[in-house]
């Protein structure tokens, strides 16, 4: 812990204007980040409510709580809310928005007005999707597969599609803003290879958002147009090709998984370096691993169509590329481990979350290799094995990383310390609850339980009850931070400028930072993560 004298800064971004208008029309990236924090938290709760319904239904083998049609809508809305309105924006829009200008020594993002616009575009998109929920729901699955979504489904497909289309522009604008900011707004001396790995990760994420999101946008336009006008582009009955839809959809939606995980990986790099008080092992490897994931991630989408009538040669290539994309992810995990090796690792709550991330992400990543194997995938595809796999990556990875980041930078964002014991307990409960929820799903999936059904054979009940019980534990773990973090605003002790004794420009300004971020433009003369060489046996 730092021992600098603690005094509350007089002028901060939080007290610069106290009216509602000063918040809703703010161009300050830090305030926009907090607007996003409120919004994504709200959508997380909605998505979580649908998850509760799913797990309640699956406690018993019979489909007794929800009808099959309602169940279709529940898992669809769970996926839509969580993927498009929580997981994709969560880390970039909240922590990326708050931290990127601070980390590179800039006053704000390159386009502050565009940043605010991006927030409202996101909100308008969410309103359309909420309209779909209240007007009867959506039952296509979050994947909108044709021709069901275009011809057969009687649910509110068009409002949901419009919502996702509009929301996509929010992601494009944020990505564009980050990319231009990182190119043009770095402080003097902040060279590319002095950038924190968090910034590299967001650069790679922006690349995917810019190149991928427009493709899903046009795909969704085609789905909506097909449904409204009756074009028949994806309808095999009139000469269309449903597999073409799948190609277009996954061209974005597979890289979207990397939009979710890359920024979380950036967080982990920061936490591990700070907690180990060491330079990240192989900095440039970790930086280029982010770019590598972004580039190769664009070439693996076909592994979603192994059983959809894709040619076996195409499948072979996609399978090989899918194995290859695991390499840069593995590089990151190994380099984090090597960073911790012989570091004086301190176990404050962010490190608990980071360690949890590494464990869960490793399982999620390695089970991805099972699914990349064409033969094994035929057995596992569309079973709970797949569900468990992507929850390990998206929930075990992204949310764990996000929580770690929130805990790591909370003292910077609010200027207050939270109850670290409670935070560590919460991290442990999340870890246990998560594994209890999703480990049984690997097993039940392998045994043959398909996804997206509200009823199942009796022999799967034990594993499903375990999973539902785990979800209850997980819910406790997720709710705890809401209470102790909010409590810290009132009762937390002042955090000081540098709560963890970390290096990085964001710790060189006051907590909370002033509106203009730095009193004078910082000049960077040191390398990234330049921690003093540890002394043997000395605990910092």
């Amino acid at each position, binding site marked *: 812990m730092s021992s600098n004298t603690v005094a509350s800064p007089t002028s901060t971004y939080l007290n610069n204007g106290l009216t509602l208008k000063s918040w809703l029309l703010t161009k300050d990236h830090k305030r926009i980040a907090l607007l996003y924090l409120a919004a994504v938290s709200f959508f997380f709760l909605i998505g979580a409510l649908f998850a509760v319904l799913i797990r309640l239904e699956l406690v018993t083998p019979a489909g007794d709580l929800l009808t099959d049609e309602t169940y279709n809508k529940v898992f669809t809305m769970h996926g839509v809310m969580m993927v498009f309105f929580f997981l994709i924006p969560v880390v970039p829009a909240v922590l990326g928005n708050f931290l990127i200008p601070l980390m590179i020594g800039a006053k704000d993002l390159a386009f502050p007005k565009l940043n605010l616009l991006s927030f409202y575009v996101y909100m308008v998109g969410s309103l359309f999707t909420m309209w779909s929920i209240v007007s009867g729901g959506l039952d296509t699955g979050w994947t909108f597969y044709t021709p069901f979504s275009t011809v057969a489904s009687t649910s509110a497909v068009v409002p949901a599609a419009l919502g996702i289309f509009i929301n996509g522009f929010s992601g494009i604008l944020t990505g564009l803003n980050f990319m*231009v900011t990182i190119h043009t707004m770095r402080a003097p001396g902040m060279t590319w290879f002095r950038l924190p790995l968090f910034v590299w990760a967001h650069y790679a994420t922006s690349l995917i958002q810019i190149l991928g999101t427009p493709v899903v946008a046009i795909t969704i336009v085609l789905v909506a147009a097909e449904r409204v006008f009756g074009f028949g582009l994806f309808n095999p009955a009139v000469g269309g090709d449903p597999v073409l839809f799948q190609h277009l959809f996954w061209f974005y939606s597979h890289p979207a998984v990397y939009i979710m995980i890359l920024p979380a990986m950036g967080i982990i790099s920061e936490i591990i370096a700070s907690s180990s008080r060491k330079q990240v092992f192989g900095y440039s490897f970790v930086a280029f691993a982010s770019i590598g994931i972004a580039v190769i991630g664009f070439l693996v989408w076909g592994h979603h169509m192994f059983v959809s009538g894709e040619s076996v040669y195409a499948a072979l290539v996609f399978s090989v590329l899918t194995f290859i994309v695991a390499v840069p992810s593995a590089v990151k995990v190994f380099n984090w481990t090597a960073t911790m090796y012989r570091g004086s690792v301190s176990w404050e709550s962010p490190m608990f979350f980071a360690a949890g991330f590494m464990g869960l992400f490793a399982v999620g990543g390695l089970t991805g290799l099972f699914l990349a194997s064409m033969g094994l995938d035929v057995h596992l595809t569309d079973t709970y094995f797949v569900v468990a796999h992507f929850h390990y990556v998206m929930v075990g990875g992204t949310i764990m990383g996000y929580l770690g980041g929130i805990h790591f930078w909370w003292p910077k964002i609010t200027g207050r310390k939270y109850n670290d014991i409670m935070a560590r307990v919460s991290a442990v409960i999340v870890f246990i609850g998560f594994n209890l929820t999703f480990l049984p799903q690997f097993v039940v999936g392998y045994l043959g339980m398909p996804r997206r059904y509200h009823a199942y054979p009796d022999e799967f009940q034990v594993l499903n009850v375990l999973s539902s019980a785990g979800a209850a534990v997980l819910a406790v773990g997720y709710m705890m931070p809401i209470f102790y973090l909010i409590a810290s605003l009132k009762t937390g002790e002042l955090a000081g400028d540098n709560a963890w004794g970390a290096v990085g420009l964001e710790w060189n300004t006051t907590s909370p930072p002033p509106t203009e971020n730095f009193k004078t433009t910082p000049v960077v003369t040191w390398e990234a993560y330049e921690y003093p060489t540890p002394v043997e046996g000395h605990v910092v």
Partner: protein
Amino acid sequence: MEQQTEASLLGMWTFLVTEILFFGGALTAYLVYRNWYPDAFALASYEIPIMPGAINTAVLIFSSLTMALAVHFAQTGDRGKTMLFIVLTSILGAAFLGIKAYEYHEKYVEHFIPGFGLPFEFPANPEYTNAARIFYSLYFVLTGLHALHMIIGLGIMTWMFIWVKNGTITQEYYAPVEIAGLYWHFVDIVWIFLFPLLYLIGRHVHHVG
């Protein structure tokens, strides 16, 4: 100011990259179906009169020239000529949309509209009706999105006209006109791709035969 201009230009170029991917998705669909139904697509292309499309191509290429001149005069600080060429560019853009509207109306008359519950017929070869429907679906998606971009372009031209008139644009700060120009040229280039893809390829097969 220089950093701001650099950022704005980079932002616009990045945005244009997203636009390429946006149209790219629809063009991929075109590519796949052109491969599936080469004869039907060639015949459907042949059914589109070439003259309005050719005139529109010329109109847009000419508008690129007037746009480039508008940027040039913004750079040299000649407000009068900048406004003149912005107006000329807008007139050409509006002319394009007028001709496009005429073409759409012709499609309606000839029963080539694949939606709204309207009758769709392909008398040139009734066996190709389904494939022709796909062709015309793509025709309307691609030209419709292009026309939407033209309409947005006209809005940007109006905005730039106001900014030049009220003195926001100066010789030192003309980046907005330059960025508007980038957008306008991009939309023109999209048409340069759409014209051969929708009107020209395979046309001669039926023209001669």
